[in-house]
């Protein structure tokens, strides 16, 4: 088990190194100039800027400097927010994205399990059809539509009530998190509902369910004790990567609801060619995703004794 964990972690480090290198190369091959702005600057000012950001050095040299700084955990200073360290940007804004993301996953998991179980119970009857229709909607409609709709509904609700009960945008209290996290979690909820449904349907025909029925256990007890517990395993598997995906993928939701999360930096840095922030956020998110996948693999061994790790 220990050797396995160690091996996985080592592979993880190599993966992160690969992500960093690939991003570095891709970023430098994007046409456009990170130092260019609306107004042109003289050759001298430009040279000063290049010196400040180390862009006067050759590509391989820049790569080596970046790598050695990264190993020391220093991603440098942002190009667009020139007084801020990339490390500070990650430290200040990742907790916001993480809070939002975890809450979204929480809603998604609860919703997915409940709806999934319901569709399995009412298989091919009206509730199943309605829920599965909504699931297709949830998977296919992009989150910016839900975000805009969600915010508009808040405005309408507040107008009806005559005072703003739920904040329309911003960050700080639980009220601020509620609708954005629901919106953010919708896609995952739909995904988990489908997964849960097929998993439940598989379990329903298992021998131990028949045995339980034969023993005369109440349907409720069978459902909770035997069916749900066995069906939930595949859901757990996808949950890890989903947490990573959702905490990193909230760009649109963060924009619409004016939430100071890291997702905004992640996307805007690419648009602005902010080299240091691109590298910092990509490596950070990459490492986070890799870590979550490894974590799930390891936890799997504990949760399900049938899984033997080598």
């Amino acid at each position, binding site marked *: 088990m220990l050797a396995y964990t160690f091996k996985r972690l080592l592979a993880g480090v190599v993966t992160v190194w690969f992500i960093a290198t690939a991003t570095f190369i891709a970023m430098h091959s994007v*046409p*456009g*100039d*990170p130092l*260019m*702005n*609306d*107004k*042109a*600057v*003289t050759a*001298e*000012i430009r040279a*000063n*800027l290049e010196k*400040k950001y180390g862009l006067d050095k050759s590509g391989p040299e820049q790569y080596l400097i970046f790598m050695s700084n990264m190993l020391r955990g220093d991603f440098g200073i942002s190009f*667009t*927010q*020139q*007084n*801020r360290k990339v490390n500070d*940007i990650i430290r*200040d*804004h990742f*907790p*916001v994205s*993480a*809070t939002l993301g*975890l*809450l979204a*996953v*929480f809603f998604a*998991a609860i919703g997915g*399990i409940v709806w999934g179980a319901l569709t399995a119970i009412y298989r091919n009857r009206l509730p199943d059809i309605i829920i599965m229709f909504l699931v297709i909607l949830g998977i296919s409609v992009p989150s910016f539509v839900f975000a805009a709709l969600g*915010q*508009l509904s*808040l*405005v309408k609700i*507040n*107008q009806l009530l005559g005072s*703003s009960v739920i*904040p*329309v*945008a*911003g*960050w*700080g*209290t639980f009220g601020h998190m509620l609708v954005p996290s629901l919106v953010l979690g919708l896609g995952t909820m739909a995904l988990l509902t489908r997964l849960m449904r097929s998993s439940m349907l598989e379990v329903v025909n298992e021998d131990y369910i028949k045995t339980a029925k034969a023993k005369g256990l109440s349907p409720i007890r069978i459902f909770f004790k035997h069916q*749900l517990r066995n069906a*939930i395993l595949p859901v*757990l598997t996808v949950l890890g990567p989903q947490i990573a995906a959702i905490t990193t993928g909230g760009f649109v939701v963060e*924009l*619409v*609801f*004016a939430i*100071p*999360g890291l997702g*905004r930096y992640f996307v805007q840095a690419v*648009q602005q*060619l902010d080299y240091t922030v691109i590298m910092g956020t990509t490596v950070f998110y990459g490492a986070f995703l890799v870590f979550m996948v490894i974590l799930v693999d390891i936890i799997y061994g504990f949760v399900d004794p049938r899984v033997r790790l080598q």
Partner: protein
Amino acid sequence: MRRLFFPFLTVLCLIAPLSDGFAQISASSADFDTQTITLALTQEPPQLNSMKATDQVSALILGHVMEGLLSYDRRGKIIPGVAEKWEIDSTGATFWLRKDARWSDGKPVTADDFLFAWQTALKPETASEYSFILYSIGNAEDINKGKKPTESLAVTVVDDHTLTVEFETPIGYFDKLVAFTTFFPARRDFFKARGDSYGADAKDLLFNGPFRMTDWVHSASLKMVKNEHYWDRDNIHLNAINADYITEDSRARLNLYIDGKIVHTRLDGETYKDALTQRQRIRSFTTGSVFYLEYNFREDRITTNRNLRKAIQHVFDPEEFVNKVLATPGNLPGRSLFPVWLGGVEDKFRREYKAAEPKIDLALARDYLEKAKVELGVEKIPPLVLLVGNSPTSAKQAEYLQGVFKEKLDIDVKIDIQTFKQRLAKMTSGDFDMVAAGWGPDFDDIMTFGDLFASWNLNNRGRYNNPDYDRLVRIGMTSADPKTRMDAMGELQRILTEDAVIIPQYEQGVIYLMHPKVKGVVRRVVGADPDFRRARIVK
């Protein structure tokens, strides 16, 4: 299930406190009793070090928390700022600073604070992108290029309250420059104590303007309160300006406005319709920026052919462009490089020097086109590359132009849509025939536009090169006589049309919503906009 639930909740509880400090939200967007307003910013201010700031959001904040030697009044006229008196002639300027000007920590604002800020902005290591705006001061350019030491800057601190400046070359608009952000002061001891982190946070800045920043939570909110040390504090009515929201999304800002959370929001083509259906009172204002088609004058380009440019000039109708393509109120049809708000000798420049309006005349245009074909030795004009930005509006504008060119002149246009940085790179390297470009003013003088197509100007991305144009620009920059300067600019305006150097498209207007109880807000073409410095809330 329970086994899952609790670890989850635990993690949530662990992370949630890390993200606090974001708690905020005032009761109403415009509160009469506390004289407090709430705003939404379009983006996080990227740079609040005044010596290095280049963008509009930073200028908006800095305009409220800082003050230069001179300032603008509500009509855009130059008025005293930190300096209560000043004299400017062709060789230099003297400023007498008021004795009651104070920093937000109570210490006096002195002449040295200006000298220090200007020297720092010019230092090569600072790498300030706006350092060129100081070049009219003696030795400034050489200092910026590392050829002379910073101490050689031709600015003398006579005493704490007197500052003299020697010019490099005569300049007719130094008073307007001094009101600009890069000329704002910075205090030596404070700046040195903060080092690299100067401007990074509210505590890493010192303020001498009507407001001071107390809180700055990055990407979330920014709070400014009245600066009790400001010399004119009795005429400042607002106690606090809270920028509680930061989002680029215009629909989100409209929703916040309708929900009564913010006092002001700018509208775009989409949100404009929503605001109309919501029966909001929509106001408009011209930003002072001009948008135009710029040609490539590099030798290998067919756009060097004047007859081709004239043909295009006589089919492009700015009136139709503004009404049918832009289709939001507030925009004016483009007639000149010089927008209508610029001052002339006595009155507005455009009233004193009328811009020629090229007739929309298909027969004339086709005449020019035939001549162009003969000169270029081609049967048909080869496709022209039109470089544009990647916003939905740019694409719409480009498609309109493509249609006009094809229909009227049978010229094919290839639209090259690029992201911001890539478009700039292509403009600089000359990879285009025409580019949809625009220019916003830095200071309130005609030269902020006039020198744009001078052969030495780096923003002249099409490399237009005309000795006559250059000569007129020199007159405009160095002459102290308003009539001589404006005559030169009048002639320059004529050349621009005559030579079809650019095709003016429109003067940009913005439409916006403003809380009806907030009075005294000034919309500005230069400096902080919207300007809430003298605003107040009525009952």
